[in-house]
């Protein structure tokens, strides 16, 4: 009767086993769910922190553009404008708007409502419209970043005054200005047109974007041709010998070398030995191209391998040389796959920052570089620099720069996916 016993035993254990099966499945679902949660929290955190940075507040101030007060002579030259006391005029206008303010401390707080860059905006405005001298104008001036963050509702009065940079008295003024319709939120154009600045409301990513562009251009110009040629050699020409093995082992290992080590290489070889300029997109691009080469070679080899041998045989059969076969027939077919891999490699290079810290691309750059040898920084490094700044205005800028960076990455990856789809359809 042992047979019967076994069946009951199994039947009895079935419930437990099925429960365990279900539990196991739930572990799996939970793991996938956790992955999703991480992704969503990460993206939501960045987006919610960064969105406010795309707008900026302006305050309407009645400015008396008195020539004497400004120190402008008749028919002022450009030099005169640059020497004129616009800062004093802005301060005087603020004092006129709030005549009850007295005492040095309070006045200082009052001046801090307006950005230090406002006087330059005013100067440019007046230089463009010289006929305004002698009149009183209502002009929208850029708000200071701390005042802006209060107007955006990011600072609460409930916080103890010592813990926040916007003081109670400033909040009163700002509330009054808001009631009078003298505050306005606008799209933050400075963020896309300016370089780095010490003031959050004047800082932008233009210089970093341009630096990224130059760096990536150098990377692509070096890594793409060299990578494709290396892949062609290894797939189509390389004899099976020790040297080829050595090359292959090296490529596979380089793909896994930490990126910071490439930075050390760039510092020791390109900067100290060849004495190329520090902080330049040229050197940055060279380092990043060495870093992305393995990716490009590996993906290019895979897509050359995927070309059907019949194409090769047909070309060789009608008398093409090996090189002609590759150049005229194999490479065109493999090209979409090679491009996909290269774009993914470029996306990696765009997001990379560690090796660039080593070669000095971590500098305070106000002006956009105009060539590959100018000192510059790149977008990820700009993010790194801003993330270190204690001002809350920069936290917002950092997240906004991340949003822009991720936008570019998504674009590049979408392009790669699109190319792959088209390739697969063939």
């Amino acid at each position, binding site marked *: 009767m042992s047979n019967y016993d076994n069946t009951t035993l199994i039947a009895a254990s079935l419930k437990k086993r099925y429960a365990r099966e279900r539990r196991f*499945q739930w572990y799996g679902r939970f793991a996938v769910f956790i992955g999703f949660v991480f992704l969503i929290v990460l993206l939501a955190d960045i987006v919610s922190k960064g969105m406010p940075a795309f707008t900026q507040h302006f305050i309407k101030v009645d400015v008396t553009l008195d020539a004497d007060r400004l120190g402008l002579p008749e028919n002022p030259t450009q030099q005169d404008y640059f020497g004129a006391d616009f800062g004093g005029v802005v301060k005087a206008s603020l004092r006129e708007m709030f005549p009850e303010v007295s005492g040095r401390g309070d006045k200082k707080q009052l001046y801090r409502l307006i950005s230090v860059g406002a006087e330059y905006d005013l100067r440019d405005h007046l230089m463009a419209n010289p006929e305004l001298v002698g009149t009183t104008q209502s002009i929208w001036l850029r708000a200071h970043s701390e005042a802006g963050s209060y107007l955006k509702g990011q600072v609460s009065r409930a916080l103890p005054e010592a813990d926040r940079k916007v003081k109670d008295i400033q909040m009163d003024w700002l509330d009054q200005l808001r009631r009078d319709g003298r505050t306005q939120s606008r799209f933050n154009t400075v963020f896309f047109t300016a370089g780095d600045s010490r003031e959050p409301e004047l800082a932008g990513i233009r210089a970093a974007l341009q630096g990224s562009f130059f760096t990536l251009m150098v990377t692509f110009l070096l890594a793409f041709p060299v990578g494709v040629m290396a892949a062609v050699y290894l797939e189509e020409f390389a004899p099976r010998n020790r040297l080829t093995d050595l090359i292959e082992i090296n490529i596979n290992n380089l793909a896994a070398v930490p990126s910071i080590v490439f930075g050390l290489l760039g510092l020791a070889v390109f900067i100290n030995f060849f004495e190329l300029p520090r902080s330049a997109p040229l050197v940055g691009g060279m380092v990043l191209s060495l870093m992305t080469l393995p990716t490009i070679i590996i993906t290019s080899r895979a897509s050359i391998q995927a070309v059907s041998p019949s194409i090769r045989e047909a070309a060789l059969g009608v008398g093409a040389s090996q090189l002609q076969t590759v150049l005229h027939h194999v490479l065109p077919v493999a090209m979409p796959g090679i491009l996909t891999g290269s774009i993914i490699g470029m996306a990696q290079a765009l997001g990379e920052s560690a090796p660039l810290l080593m070669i000095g691309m971590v500098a305070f750059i106000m002006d956009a570089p105009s060539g590959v040898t100018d000192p510059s920084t790149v977008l990820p490094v700009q993010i790194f620099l801003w993330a270190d700044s204690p001002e809350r205005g920069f936290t917002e800028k950092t997240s906004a720069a991340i949003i822009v960076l991720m936008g570019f990455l998504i674009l590049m990856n979408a392009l790669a996916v699109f190319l792959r789809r088209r390739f697969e359809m063939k």
Partner: protein
Amino acid sequence: MQTSTVLLVLVALCIASFFFARRKSHAVAHGSGGLTTLHSLPKHYGYMALAWAGLPALAALALWSALEPRMLEAEVVSSLPAEVRALPEQQFGLYYNQILGYASGGMNAAELDEVQLAAADRYSALAARFSWLRSALVFAVALAGAVLAIRRVQPALRARNHVESIIRWILFSCSFLAVLTTLGIVLSVLFEAVRFFQVIPLTDFLFGLEWSPQMAIRSDQVGASGSFGFVPLLVGTLLISAVAMLIAVPVGLMSAIYLSEYASRRFRTLTKPVLEILAGVPTVVYGFFAALTVAPLVRTLGESVGLTVASESALAAGVVMGIMIIPFVMSLSDDIINAVPDTMREASLGMGATMSETIRKVLLPAALPGIVGGILLAVSRAIGETMIVVMAAGLSAKLTANPLEAVTTITVQIVTLLVGDQEFDSPKTLAAFALGLVLFFVTLLLNVVALYVVRRYREQYE
């Protein structure tokens, strides 16, 4: 002449030689009875001349550009008075740099002395002459190459084979660049590291328990000797990597199992790319997330249960690093689980085992070597990861295994030692290269072992 002008003229010369050679091939073909008597197409003769004109000239240009600063320096230095030449190396470097600065227009004459001004003038004159010499050399080489090639154009010349062998060499040198890169890495780190070990004994570095790389400027300063004990950095790195693995391995492995064994095809094709976004997020973004969101969160959570948590705790950096590595572990384990033959799966299911029993008792044991290899690769990634720890981990090298305290890592120290002004003879800067050497070899070792294990595992089922 500027480099770009030289290059442009060189390109023009190359194009011209292409057309000359092609015309010559037409001419010689006519002389011997039609184009069919040529071994190669006319354009191949053109390409041959182009290569002969361009390649040696480019090599000459590169060589000259590499040697020029040294030749200039030698010439200028030899003209300086003896007492200047007798200056100590550092002062002399400064002195010479001032000359260069003035010659390039970056400095005022007021900051320099008479001798320097004379030397700067001499430098400018020499530089102008050298620039002409360089252009002359490059163009002479290009012309000579082109003339030689064009003179060789004959119907019997195997121009196509010639061109193809040149191209083959170019292709080879492109792939050989990988070897040169590795060599460059090893040599550059090794060279500086050896200089470091001349000052700090190797044993102090490998077994020292204290890391504070402050070297005194004057020898009588307090705490004059920095200590370069590498152990706290290693422990910190391993601690953060361990936290990362505790997050990444269970989540990554279970997701891979669920997606490859349970999920519907549709769910899988939708889910995998979304989770792989995590791999495409730049590390600097993770660093920002770790420093500004996760670290304060960990701190508040810890304090709410009465623990003291450092504001730059290893836990926060490790958790975020784990999130970054999830997709890496996931896709590696996915590959490996898929490589297990279906026959094993079916045999187990056919015996009445449930799917989870099959996975735990058959698939995972069979895939174990591969998964271990994958995890080793992930560990090597975690050790080499820089930005997250630079932004979210601390700077103080504390020897602790408590993830709630602030620790520092190898990569953090490399960055802090090298960012900013550097002098290339202080042990502080050289220490970064010693750390780089260690980092390179540790990750290399992990990768080699991991790849070996994975390959052996694959071969088992092929």
